[in-house]
């Protein structure tokens, strides 16, 4: 299984310079396999820095990053191998597209891994299927695709490496609601089919509530909260204090309680709220 653990990781930008900034401050946490973990925090809270620690794009100034109990920096020359195991989809990943056809672009990662051509073709096909790219699109130039298709092609480029850990930095940013649901749904599906360890960074509380098994909250380079969505979103005051929000339905639940209808504060999806409301009515009537 693929479990990533951070042990007392600290990272400082511009060390020694007047603009020195502590992006990560003694962070310890574990991303468990077989789960989708959501990482939330407002801009500058250290999320993107943390994400770049996981596949060795950045090296911690102190502390260790462990993949299945092994320090990823044990042999710095082998860091490329780590990057094949921990796939990272950066923010707005469509700018990484470069090859002549979508197919060749998706194959870039697997080719770097040294897979043989037959396997590459299969991996590309699978990744395209996971991300919902129609086969006829594979022969097109990536620059002729629409915005949402480009995003999917870029995502497929990382999925094709079949990493045991898939890290996505704002995978749905800038997409319309339909596109958001589509891409996050496909990520969820990929996680369920592959059993991978999936980590999603997002600003959207709604998305986190719907798609994550566990939520971590970052603030000023520190981990301030972690737990199931219900646990985290029931602490609305603290979330608002660190400049974050709670899902709209959680706000509705709070407003209802203040109005005298208490359906609980651990509500974070509309479905669940409806369920509580209905069962409350039954109890009331019955």
């Amino acid at each position: 299984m693929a479990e990533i653990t951070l042990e007392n990781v600290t990272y400082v930008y511009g060390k020694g310079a007047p603009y020195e900034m502590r992006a990560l401050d003694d962070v310890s946490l574990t991303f468990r396999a077989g789960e989708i973990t959501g990482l939330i925090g407002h801009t500058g809270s250290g999320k993107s820095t943390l994400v770049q620690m996981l596949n060795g794009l950045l090296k911690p100034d102190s502390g260790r990053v462990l993949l299945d109990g092994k320090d990823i920096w044990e042999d710095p020359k082998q860091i490329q191998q780590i990057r094949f195991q921990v796939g990272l989809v950066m923010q707005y990943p469509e700018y990484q597209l470069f090859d002549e056809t979508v197919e060749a672009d998706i194959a870039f990662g697997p080719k770097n891994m040294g897979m043989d051509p037959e396997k590459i073709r299969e991996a590309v096909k699978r990744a395209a299927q996971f991300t919902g790219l129609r086969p006829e699109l594979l022969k097109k130039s990536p620059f002729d695709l629409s915005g949402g298709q480009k995003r999917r092609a870029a995502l497929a480029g990382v999925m094709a490496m079949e990493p045991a850990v898939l890290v996505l930095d704002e995978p749905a940013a800038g997409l319309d609601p339909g596109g958001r649901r589509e891409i996050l749904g496909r990520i969820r599906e990929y996680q369920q089919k592959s059993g991978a360890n999936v980590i999603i960074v997002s600003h959207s509380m709604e998305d986190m509530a719907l798609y994550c098994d566990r939520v971590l909250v970052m603030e000023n380079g520190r981990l301030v909260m972690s737990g199931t969505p219900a646990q985290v979103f029931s602490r609305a005051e603290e979330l608002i204090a660190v400049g974050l929000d709670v899902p709209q339905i959680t706000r509705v639940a709070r407003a209802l309680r203040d109005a005298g209808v208490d359906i609980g504060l651990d509500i974070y999806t509309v479905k669940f709220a409806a369920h509580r409301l209905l069962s409350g009515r039954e109890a009331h009537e019955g």
Partner: protein
Amino acid sequence: MKADIAFGQYYEGNSFLHRLDPRWKILFVIFYIVIIFLAKNIFSFALLILSAIFLTLISRIPLRTILRGLRPLVFIIFFTAIINIFWLKGDTVLVDWWIIHIYLEGLINALLIVVRVVILVAGTSILLTYTTTPIALTDGLERLLSPLAKIHLPVHEFSMMMTIALRFIPTLVEETEKIMNAQKARGADFSTGSLVRRAKALIPILIPLFISAFRRAEELATAMECRCYTGGKGRTRMNILHSSWRDVAALLALCALCAGVVLLNIFAPGYALAL
């Protein structure tokens, strides 16, 4: 990362030099270069060295920063010095061994040339690039060249292009870094293999970079058009350049230096430069 990008050499400050009018500064630099090439013997060179020290002091730029700026020149300086030491013939022989003949004149000549190159680079960068923001520099250049607009040279457009290019250097550097990281995450390797392999490894960076640069250019053009930009005609400026007593003082100081160098060349005896 982002903060590491120190574009150009501009050193934030508020010294006498920082507050000179950029139009004058450009002219001063040309004047200073002329003076540097006027110097002929060790006495006038000594005066030049004093002037460079004086410039460093009033600019309030740390000596370390200035020396770091000279680092890329070490090879050229070394090379010119060697050539001058071995090739120049004179009367006083210092070393005469096998095929190596070193004359005192050659040694002094080498020394003076090294001093000239160092002052040329350090002096002009203190006077101009260290103490003038790139924007002020292009602004000054535009104003100086503005008479050329009379003969239909696109002076304003040229300086606008320069301003935009300067503005986008940090943006492109940041973008390059982002793309490199994205491709590294897909296992791209830029640092091993043969030269051809490494050159090929750059393709996944260059193509996205070009595409985004073109996209940015188009967006910028649209944004400028939306704000009714039509070129330099009838355009007024936000920052109007003013000459002040400082510029006059600097001009007088340079004239004095020039006179000093010329007088020392004529009246002080000493080892003259052969070039």
